[in-house]
């Protein structure tokens, strides 16, 4: 079985993102870029499945500018067997990303597609669900546990009410939550080896994907800030400050 993993290039988790003064976007110049942390968890899960012998190939896919090759190389260094970049110079919305993934699925015929539940840049939380719809296959979103057996997947999902367990027929789309696993660190020799692994570059227009935007971003603004609070030095003053605000009535 092949596993397709989708890796999005995003501003690193540790960067405090700032909006440009003219409201045209967020500052990305000179900012560290990384694999979306949820996608890194997706890759780790795929590698573990392959290492258990339940899959024989892990393919890493990214969609975006040519710089995404850096994140794909990191994915190859983690252990993906080969990588595909679908190059796109303009913004790719979740629906267009899902349509692009469909093109790759038709070519590669994977038994499982694993991707992050959301990207930490646009926080959309859509692509996996949209892909499952277009593919007409089951989805196991927000997965914190994944077990494969006899062509089926048992997925434990982190939902608002607790943990929901569903059973899916493969092929299926899984989106990862934070507690699914802890991704491995990349070792230097693996970075060297990754340079020799195959990385194919396709163009999104060659795939015939409609990239017209459904949703146009007009402006970016910093979030409203909360008014400066007060520090108190005792529990008595804490309680009286809370009483003053009518919070304990």
């Amino acid at each position, binding site marked *: 079985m092949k596993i397709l993993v989708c890796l999005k290039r995003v501003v690193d988790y540790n960067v405090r993102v700032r909006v440009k003064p003219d409201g045209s976007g967020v500052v990305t110049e000179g900012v560290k870029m990384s694999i979306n942390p949820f996608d890194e968890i997706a890759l780790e899960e795929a590698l573990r499945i392959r290492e258990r012998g339940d899959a024989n190939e892990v393919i890493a896919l990214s969609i975006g500018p040519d710089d995404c090759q850096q994140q794909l190389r990191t994915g190859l260094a983690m252990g993906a067997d080969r990588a595909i970049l679908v190059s796109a110079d303009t913004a790719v919305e979740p*629906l267009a990303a899902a349509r692009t993934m469909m093109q790759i699925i038709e070519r590669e015929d994977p038994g499982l597609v694993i991707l992050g539940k959301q990207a930490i840049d646009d926080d959309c939380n859509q692509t996996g669900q*949209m892909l499952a719809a277009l593919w007409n296959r089951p*989805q196991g979103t927000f997965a914190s546990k994944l077990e494969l057996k006899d062509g089926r997947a048992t997925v434990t999902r982190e939902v608002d*009410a*607790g*943990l929901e367990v569903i059973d899916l027929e493969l092929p299926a789309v899984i989106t990862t939550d934070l*507690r699914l696993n802890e991704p491995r660190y990349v070792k230097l020799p693996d970075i060297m080896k990754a340079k020799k692994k195959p990385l194919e570059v396709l163009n999104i227009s060659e795939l015939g994907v409609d990239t017209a935007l459904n949703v146009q971003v007009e*402006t970016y603004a*910093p979030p409203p800030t909360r008014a400066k609070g007060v520090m108190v*030095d005792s529990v008595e003053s804490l309680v009286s400050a809370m009483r003053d605000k009518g919070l304990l009535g």
Partner: protein
Amino acid sequence: MSKVLILAEHDGGGLNPSTAKCVSCAAELSAAAIDVVVFADAAAAAASGAAALDQVSRVLTVEREENAHPLAAVIAPQLAAMAADYDYVLAPSTTFGKDVLPRAAALAGVGQISDIMAVEGPRRFRRPIYAGNAIITVTVADDAKVFATVRVASYPAASESGVAAPIESLSVDAALPAYTRYVELQSGGGDRPDLQAARRVVSGGRGVGSEDNFKVIFALADRLGAGVGASRAAVDAGYVPNDMQVGQTGKIIAPELYMAFGISGAIQHLTGIKDAGTIVAVNKDPDAPIFEVADIGLVGDLFEIIPELERVLGN
């Protein structure tokens, strides 16, 4: 005039409060009709909850055995089929809405707007990105159908009107896949107030130190009639179950009072509490980032402060 369809969330019984918040968002769209659809095997309780809400025009129930559990693969094709008659399809930005709506949008061949926090016009909305570090204003074309999830912390629940909206039973013609099977729900919460609806929330972080120590957080919460939340660190460490996690990837909440004990205040946590009325923070570390957003801060050991707090509150 435009028509809005809201996907109701329920637990097989009553209506989830997130639905009433979607109604408040829908009310800002100047629509001619706001319909609420309940997919269930027995929809009566959720439907009467929705019918009682002010501004709701009609409640539509789609009752069939396959709808007994909230499976996206089953609900999405039915919702997508119904969407043909509507200009807007809204769902709460809860794990339920996030699971179902993108699947329905893709089936309908349109994009989705996630986490609407403000309606600026019938075609213009605001939503947070980068864990709330930036707010974008987005627009959609005049003739486009809008699928959107509603950031529930941004809206009050619609009030109940004196007159119940009509409830109509509907049968939807859509092929339902059988490749997804519901197994079970392991519920973590107890009888405490629902975190996303609670007026007060008491939260603990890594500083609480253990599952056992979390008892002090629960005790204080019970005393205040509050829901209990936690930071990702506390959930990862196994102190409390996942459904208590507050933050970018957990629950986004807007209680009147949020009390954070032993939570340092990572940006991903803060994004979950920004809409709280008053934030009270107690932490040993005077430099903890939680104090930057706290309305009232107190530096100290939570294990000394909570018992004292209970004593003072008792007076």
